């Protein structure tokens, strides 16, 4: 395994390429791109992205983990592109760069939370994407969700009282504004309409893009294993979509056992994506 630091694209984004040793390298395998989650820099929460990149290198897969502009070590972008568009544009720039240096035209893209959101949108935008993985992806309440989340509370008078108190508390909207050099990048996650996400997932599956989802108990909006498949029945029927739910896992996957499950899942999934791509190319 070999790693090198790079800057690329018009915004000089900072990234690390992790390449397998020549003996295990699989040149025809799609390259993995890992995207920041929120303001966490490219090492990932609990260094998980580093673990993923190095584990994939052992399997012959090249990875780029990088910082979006204004995050981690990457400078703030001078233009005024909206943040969601910036995620897509810079992911495309990452693919352009990796295509130039590796010759590979197919990519797997993913990340935690907003990183996974970026992967989803970039996958819709750019047909070089053949695999998308998301940790705590956009999700939507089902009847099963409401029963699990609110059922017990409906019978608990303390929950009613708490609800009333919360509504009466005035929100603090007078946060001190940081001066320019101390500005923190902000990303307020907004879930798009369910229909839009459903249509997007359908598009990806129609195109033959492989999907992997990990949902954690740390995501308030998700409550049980099959919630995503019940929301989007196409996922249940399509063998290109895999999903795991770990109810006792927190949102940033801090438990080491859960980190191992995630890394093992992504190794297995990436191997299957690579195998499927190889089969399609030889067909």
């Amino acid at each position, binding site marked *: 395994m070999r*790693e*090198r*630091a*790079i*800057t690329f694209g018009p915004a*000089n984004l*900072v990234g*690390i390429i992790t390449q397998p040793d020549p003996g295990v390298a699989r040149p025809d395998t799609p390259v993995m791109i890992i995207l920041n*989650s*929120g*303001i*966490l*820099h*490219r*090492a990932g*929460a*609990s*260094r*998980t992205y*580093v673990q993923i990149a190095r584990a994939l290198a052992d399997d012959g897969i090249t990875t780029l983990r990088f910082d979006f502009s204004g995050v*981690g*070590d990457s*400078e703030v972008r001078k233009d005024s592109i909206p943040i969601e568009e910036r995620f897509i544009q810079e992911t495309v720039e990452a693919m352009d760069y990796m295509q130039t240096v590796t010759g590979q035209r197919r990519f797997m893209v993913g990340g935690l939370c907003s990183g996974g959101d970026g992967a989803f949108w970039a996958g819709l935008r750019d047909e070089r994407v053949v695999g998308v993985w998301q940790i705590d992806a956009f999700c939507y309440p089902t009847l099963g969700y409401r029963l699990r989340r609110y059922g017990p509370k409906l019978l608990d008078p303390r929950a009613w009282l708490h609800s009333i108190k919360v509504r009466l508390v005035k929100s603090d909207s007078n946060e001190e504004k*940081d*001066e320019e*050099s*101390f500005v*923190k990048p902000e990303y307020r996650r907004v879930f798009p309409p369910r229909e839009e996400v459903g249509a997007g997932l359908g598009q990806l599956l129609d195109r033959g893009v492989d999907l992997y989802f990990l949902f954690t108990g*740390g995501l308030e909006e998700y409550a049980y294993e099959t919630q995503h498949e019940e929301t989007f029945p196409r996922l249940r029927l399509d063998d290109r979509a895999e999903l795991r739910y770990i109810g006792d896992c*927190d*949102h*940033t*996957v*801090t*438990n*080491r056992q859960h*980190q191992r499950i995630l890394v093992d899942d992504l190794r297995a999934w990436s191997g299957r994506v690579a195998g499927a791509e190889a089969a399609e190319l030889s067909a």
Partner: protein
Amino acid sequence: MNPFFFGPSERPLFGVYTHGKSGGGPEGAVLLCYPTGSEYMRAHRAFRQLNTLLNRVGLSVLRFDYSHTGDSAGHSEDASVATWLDDFDWAIEELKDNARVESVSVAGLRMGATLATRACVDRSDVEHLLLWDPIVSGGAYLDEVVGRPRPDGVVGVEGFPMTPSLREEIEHLDLTAAELTPKGMMSSILVAEDRPDYRQLADAWLGNGWEGSFRVVPSEGNWAQADPFGDALIPQQIIQSIVDELRVPTAR
């Protein structure tokens, strides 16, 4: 900005070097030393801001990830204080080469401050050692993060493994030890909160002939309080104070 790997080929270290903006003022170089574990993640943004402000006053900066942390080589499970201390030699030499200076300043936060003191106190090429919210006692730090009695085996601390061997090394870190009193170099302790352990450190060093400065710069935020969403802390007041401390012209 130059992100790069340096150091020993068997365990390359990741660093970011930025050259100070020349403005006719004094030139110099600063090694920034991150905290460890989840505090490293929370501090990354603040370090970048500090880096930028130091560059603006003409100081070149290298900030780097210790072995087995961040983007540097090695598994988190293999982290050790001894290796981290060894990393300082590589980083200081690398900074001197890049900035073309004979001596450097070293500033560290939390565990970074503690390690920097251990690694630099006897060096003749460190002109200013700055400790920012240092971990004064390794034992007290472990009380906070793993509790007592100490658990057996490897435990996760906010997602980062704390092995028995690392715990053992941290247990023995004690900044108040007489041999760690900085002498023959400028030194400063800057803390965001007036706490007994910080006072104890300053008193211990003063009792041992220390001529450095101790300053409380009230700032918001608690490094040890991990945020589940990885929010960054940027304590503006203390960052500006660090820049003011390090920009003081010194004879080179």
